[in-house]
């Protein structure tokens, strides 16, 4: 029996973006790094995501967005998390995030911004080193 604290991560695809190869590869990599990974599937609304965070109580949320809707979706998710008193969860967004959008997203408390070509180890280390609890 293993009672050691496990890092629990939620991997999400918000919005109408239907391509989740990246999210699946990431989920697999985090799993292989010994984390418990929940993947919720495509087309999640900000409310879906926040509800899942409340129930599953993960240490980190990894959003994967390729559709260009990150500036619209991410602030809403962050706002709703705050409304529910959730401030100790690492929230990261990756996928296709243009450099010029990063300062805006950072202002809303997001981190990461890893895109195609990133080594999986980089993301695994990022999660391990940026947990808020």
């Amino acid at each position: 029996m293993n009672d050691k604290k496990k890092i629990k991560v939620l991997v999400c695809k918000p919005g109408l973006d239907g391509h989740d190869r990246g999210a699946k590869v990431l989920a697999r990599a985090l799993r292989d790094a010994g984390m418990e990974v929940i993947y919720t599937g495509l087309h999640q609304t900000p409310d879906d995501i926040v509800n899942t965070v409340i129930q599953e109580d993960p240490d980190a949320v990894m959003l994967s967005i390729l559709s260009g809707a990150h500036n619209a979706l991410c602030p809403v998710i962050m706002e709703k998390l705050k409304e529910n008193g959730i401030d100790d969860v690492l929230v990261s967004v990756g996928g296709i995030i243009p450099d010029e959008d990063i300062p805006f997203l950072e202002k809303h408390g997001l981190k990461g911004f890893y895109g195609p070509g990133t080594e999986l180890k980089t993301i695994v280390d990022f999660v391990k080193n940026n947990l808020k609890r």
Partner: protein
Amino acid sequence: MDYSDLIHNLLEGNTRAAARLITLIENDIDIAEKIIHAIYKETGNAYILGITGAPGSGKSTFISTLTKTLVSQGKKIGIICVDPTSPLTGGALLGDRIRMKENFSLKNVFIRSMANRGQLGGLSRATEDTIKILDAYGCDVIIVETVGVGQSEVDIFKSAHTVIVLMVPGMGDDIQAIKAGIMEITDIFVVNKMDLPGADKKVADITQMLEMNMNFKYKSEKGAQEYAKIAQWTPEIVKFNSKTGENLNKLLGIIEKHKKFLEDTGINASYQINRIKNETFQILKHKLTRKVQQLLSSNSTIEEYLKLVMDKSLDPYSMANLIIKLLGMD
């Protein structure tokens, strides 16, 4: 936040408190003990449904459909989905929520994914305690989905009132594969994906298998009280379509019938006793294992015993007896 504050909030129906407490229970058995101690009086009201079946038999979709109906009846539902932990890395991929995308509101449905963290039997160490948290949280029905089962993942039988096993047409081998374990603990067989060819044959296969099980039933009627539940109840078989909800009312009727059977025969009460016994045994096992491990790693006498066993002047059984003496438990 301190866990006593969380318990206070849990009893007021706070969702986030329930979630945090489950995390604490999963990660630390010493805190789990304190939490359960504090909430135990508030538990025992929920009806527990165990859902099990081979990987891909449609457990998550089935639960989603069932939950939608139960919610429409005004019930509050808790769902615990257990998935396997990798024996190599300790990681896990929990994907049951993917197929539970009905727009359930936070107020009526609480879904929690869990990794089994290496525990055999189809559940995780924390599952039983998580059921208690959701019970105290106010869930009327708690649905527990086991990991996809093979042959002996039968722990759900000890935790649930009603055990539902999902089968699918065309998987001819699965009856064969599960005849010794799952077959014996099932209250209701659901032949899921009934629109696929072979559903009627599957029903016939199960019927035949149950008839062959009469021998087992006869034996258990004479003896073990803990098998009273299986001995007196003849499992029902229902064809089902999780996508369309076909035969849903029939299924709900059978669940209700089984619930009434447990109450009317008084089996429910004796079943609770067995459940408590089993749970206490598991806790004892865990505590004693830890005690033994502590002793083995700290006591220098053990080293001497080991040398004696190496010299063949002692054998492992005798060494075990000496260790029991050291523990003061002989």
